[in-house]
């Protein structure tokens, strides 16, 4: 399952990319064949999980940006003695 992907600059080797596209297609196709017993209306929507997975990942990264801006301090923040409990 190793996925050789190095971020930023150059694209992954073509082989890796093509492999990814194949699996994605397969999963989408399987959606049609398989009936899923859904508790919630939204869940019954086809490709719900695929879309939700992708969007959730993006949401998490966005959320982490927010946390990074609000809740981060320099590394030695707690080391400076300011009545450190």
């Amino acid at each position: 399952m190793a996925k050789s992907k190095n971020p930023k600059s150059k694209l992954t080797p073509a082989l890796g990319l093509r492999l990814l596209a194949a699996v994605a297609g397969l999963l989408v196709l399987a959606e049609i064949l398989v009936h899923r017993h859904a508790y919630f209306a939204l869940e019954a929507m086809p490709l719900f999980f695929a879309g939700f997975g992708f969007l959730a990942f993006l949401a998490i990264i966005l959320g982490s940006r927010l946390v990074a801006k609000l809740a981060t301090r320099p590394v030695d923040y707690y080391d400076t003695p300011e009545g450190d409990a």
Partner: protein
Amino acid sequence: MLEMLLSIPGLLLIVGALLVPVLPHAPRQAYMLALIGVSGYLTFGIETGVHTTASLGGLDLILVRAEAMTKPFALVFHIAAALNVFYALHDPNKTTSAAGLAYAGAAIAALFAGDFLTLFLYWELTAITSVFLVLAGTSARTMNAAMRYLLMQVGSGVVLLAGAGLLWRDGTGLTIQAVDALTPAGLCLLLAFGIKAAFPLVNGWLQDAYPEASVTGTVMLSAFTTKLAIYMLALCFAGFTPLIYIGAVMAVLPVFFAAVENDLRRVLAYSLNNQLGFMVIGIGVGTQLALNGTVAHAFASTIYQGLLFMALGAVLHRTGTAKASQLGALAKSMPLTAIFCTVGALSIISFPLFSGFVTKSLTLGAVAKEGYFFVWLAMVFVTVGAVQHIFVKAVYLPFFGPAPKRVKAKEAPLGMLLAMGAAAALCLGIGVYPEPLYALLPYDARYEVWKAGYVLGELQLLFFAGLGFVFLSLRGVYPTAMDTTVLNTDYLFRRTLPRATMAIAGPVLRVWFVVLAALKRSVLQMLKISEQASRESGLVSGIASIGSAAGIFLAMFALMLILRQVM
């Protein structure tokens, strides 16, 4: 004495731990494993129901009582203790191994406690023994972190005692059973268990202390305290609906913090926090299926979380750092660790065929069945979060991603590999053939996991989350790890609280010092007067002449006679 030692589970480990520092290295490991083996065999044989009781000053204590739920927890605690011994084979530190064994023993004994007072005893014992594990850490901040850790743990113990006291006062007796959370006693107990189960606002100690502990210490710590708290919550507050929303918050929030955090062991601490969130949601739902889910999940989580902590512990042990910003391309130099770590990651993101899948789905199914849509959605969201902060950040990038600078590392020592291998095997084993675990669960409720639709949905979720990562990194938007301190709820105790107290205490102290100075001046004044009076020539005790002494004598005599007349 021996009979008592063998009949009370866990006590064998606690007492046995006393001998540990005496033995040299090799026989010590064998001795510890033997102890764990015997203890495991003994505890496994205990059927449900009350076994040994004792009375202390009019209170009747139930020393050993097994619930339906106790057996799986006891089993996983023994497994964790054994794995820890293997994992710490290379570590010469006697105190950590002794403390670790006593810590495991105390946790196991606490499981079987039948009343809150015995529980309190072991509750405190876990706190005290585990502090040594934190203290064994090498970083400069260890001492302070250990003290903060101890404060919170003992604080939880005190609140537990308060709850027990209130229960005893109301006359409801001390035996551990379902407690109405909305009474003062109930609230105390909820808070006590909540602190150790890292509820929101009081979870700071988990992310603060665990990463400061030693390589082996963190692994030991990750297994017992939190799971014990979950077990107590399950016993006392099953079905308490607000817990569902507490659990949800506990699950979702750490995802964002884990994404930003740079120290990978702290990332794991956040992930441990959101796993606990899952379990608390299960307890909140309270149906038999949900409780089964919580127990199963606790069982599996102890193992795969342990595995992840072990793997990163190995990385820290070899490279000297666990900072995401400094790690990369370790797979080549630490292939086995990489594989075991990947197995752990796949389990935690509940990838089919791995332990997470068969256990988390129970809770997920229970939540869905009860129709809590938003909670269900949150749980799915968190699974994606796990993909990000575990699979991508803690496994893929350090082992397979690019190395910012040449990090030389050897493969983890044999002991670690053995432990990780066993843990990975367990994760895979449970994932593939969960029946023995299901048999252990307290109730018969089942959730058919291997339904095509469900499996497909799970695969799509995970795979497209992975694609999300690919998409972001292709566009170069994926944030690189920066070395910062991420503020967590322990900020409340470390900054807000001291500042608040100083604000109030400041003026009070100033007034007090003024009063004190005035007091001191008056006392000095009094002493000076008495010194004059008592000097040689002084009135009070100087060498008075005989005449005056006799004079006083006669005056006294006269006084007595007058008194007689007056009285």
